[in-house]
């Protein structure tokens, strides 16, 4: 779960990492007041889209009056599909140098990874490998101060900046570890007046660990529909096609999208109905798919823990209540396959046993519906 910039900065501050003076702006008056308080400021849209600056999501104000005007302009604006509801006004910095620092999890090493670079200010993917210092953390040891000094030394830092940087590595790892972060990144890590300041920050938290961080502000960056399905407890991603998809298992769901694309169709969504979802949530999820008004719906089930008769019951439940006014293609194999297929057949729905055939048929029906 990504955190808004102002939340990320608040966390840094709580761990003693210097951030520029800043305050939240919810109204044009807030904008004026912010500039009056902190002086010439950048007003930054608090949305979780990349390339925020280029899209007009960061603007500057020299005076309170300008702050009011800019806030007025920005609040409510559309930024890559997201409505801007909140701005963060932050003091403009006289930046001498820009560094980069992050802590993340390296999947292959299965360890925390500290990355640092003297080439701050651009995406780390765009920095040449030999300009990046990488240091793996032994989770049994953690990050003691020496580790920070080693990174600082590897970057060739000296004096005050060496010490501040070494200290910052320790704190950043504490955030990563104690807040269950997937990524905590300061970029650019600015040098202002000879001291380090976190000019911009990213903080992505581990969804699975939210239960032990009751104080965290939950940010669901999804669309309204995505949030609705997430509340049922299922994984759901909106796509831009017209064939709605439900499958059980994340891999199966991905493969189903691939199959639709393979036959020339365009999937409307990713929906993992879970490894063993029961009738209720399955029906609810299917109801959401119907509400999307797709050109066709493809249900692809390989029954392992999931029972085919449960899935059939869920389909029939939706059919009998809200109705399914679009072409429905069902592929149903595995546990209790016979019972499930029989249930559907009794309701006039033919089930496929081959995934390829079902996907091809769904694509065909969606094209016919155009």
């Amino acid at each position: 779960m990504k955190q808004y910039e102002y939340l990320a900065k608040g966390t840094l501050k709580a761990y003693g990492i210097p951030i520029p003076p800043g305050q939240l702006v919810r109204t044009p008056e807030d904008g004026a007041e912010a500039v009056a308080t902190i002086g010439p400021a950048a007003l930054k849209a608090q949305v979780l889209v990349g390339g925020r600056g280029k899209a007009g999501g960061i603007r500057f104000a020299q005076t309170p009056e300008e702050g009011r005007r800019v806030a007025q302009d920005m609040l409510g604006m559309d930024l890559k599909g997201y409505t801007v509801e909140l701005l963060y006004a932050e003091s403009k910095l006289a930046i001498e140098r820009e560094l980069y620092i992050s802590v993340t999890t390296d999947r292959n090493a299965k360890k925390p990874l500290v990355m640092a670079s003297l080439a701050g200010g651009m995406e780390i993917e765009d920095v040449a490998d030999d300009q990046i210092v990488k240091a793996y953390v032994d989770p049994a040891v953690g990050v003691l101060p020496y580790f920070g000094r080693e990174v600082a030394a590897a970057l060739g830092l000296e004096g005050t900046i060496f010490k501040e940087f070494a200290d910052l590595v320790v704190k950043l790892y504490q955030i990563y570890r104690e807040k269950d972060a997937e990524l905590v990144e300061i970029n650019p890590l600015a040098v202002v007046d000879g001291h380090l300041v976190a000019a911009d920050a990213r903080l992505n938290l581990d969804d699975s660990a939210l239960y032990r961080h009751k104080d965290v502000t939950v940010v669901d960056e999804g669309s309204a529909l995505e949030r609705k399905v997430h509340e049922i407890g299922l994984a759901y991603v909106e796509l831009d096609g017209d064939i709605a998809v439900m499958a059980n298992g994340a891999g199966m769901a991905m493969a189903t999208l691939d199959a639709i694309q393979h036959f020339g169709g365009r999937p409307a969504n990713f929906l993992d109905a879970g490894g063993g979802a029961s009738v209720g949530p399955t029906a609810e999820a299917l109801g959401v798919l119907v509400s999307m008004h797709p050109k066709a719906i493809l249900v692809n089930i390989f029954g392992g823990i999931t029972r085919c008769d449960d899935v059939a019951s869920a389909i029939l439940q939706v059919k009998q209540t809200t109705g399914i006014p679009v072409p429905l293609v069902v592929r149903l194999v595995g546990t209790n396959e016979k019972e499930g297929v029989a249930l559907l057949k009794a309701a006039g729905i033919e089930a496929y046993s081959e995934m390829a055939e079902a996907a091809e048929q769904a694509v065909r029906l969606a094209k016919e519906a155009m």
Partner: protein
Amino acid sequence: MSILLTQDTRIIVQGITGNQGRFHTRQMLAFGSRVVGGISPTKSGQMVEGVPVFDTVRQAVDATKADASIVFVPAPYAKDAAFEALENGIRLLVMIPEHIPVQDSIDIVARAKALGATVIGPNTFGIISPGEHTKMGIMPNHIYQPGPIGVVARSGTLSYEIAFSLTNAQLGQSTVVGMGGDPVVGQTFITVLEHFRQDPDTKAVVMVGEIGGSAEEEAAEYLETLGKPVVAYLAGRAAPAGKRMGHAGAIIERGRGTLESKEQALRAHGAEVVTMPWQVAEAVRSVMS
């Protein structure tokens, strides 16, 4: 006839008195797994499906000489359960739960490495060795059959799909291993492939991968060491960047983890890469002939 898990493996079930624990204990016993004990604190003395229940792993290991454990406890308790197993001599640990915090998985995997133990998962369907009539996992029993094909997968249901298609094509399996769908899991393709390399009865390997991370690229170079034919199928070519496709690990982030580079790397090192799951069985047959 198999890797990691054989008929001699003595299995305990952590969380045996929960719904999942009970159900899958029955399924494992039905498949032939040697389930010798279960753990459920304050419930020692009970029996579940004829299996004795203990308060602690220590008691169970003392009484049954178990050397493997499958964990069904809820995610917030999974790290505790894993350490309990590892610190008491368990050397094959299957972690079924999903939604285990990544920091916990990092700790589990690091500790297992320090102790020389093997972790399968977390967020896995487990491991099954059809010819040994044993499994530790939640996969359906009826879709497998003994044979020469090793399967290693990141995803559950998709691997069932593929295993079943192999079975239907009379291509039985030596062992099927689920690595798990989380960003940090105990195994890599390489560690599992190395086991398959050492198993003389495994004649070919199917890799079932997906978007996210770079596990497939890392494994590609190893294929030459493996010295056995490999068919790879990776899911997620229709997935957009920046969106998590169900698995915590299945996400294309900042341009990394796309299928293109994975498939390219695997092909470059001799794997037969297919693009749809129903093409796997035929590809296996062709690489084996």
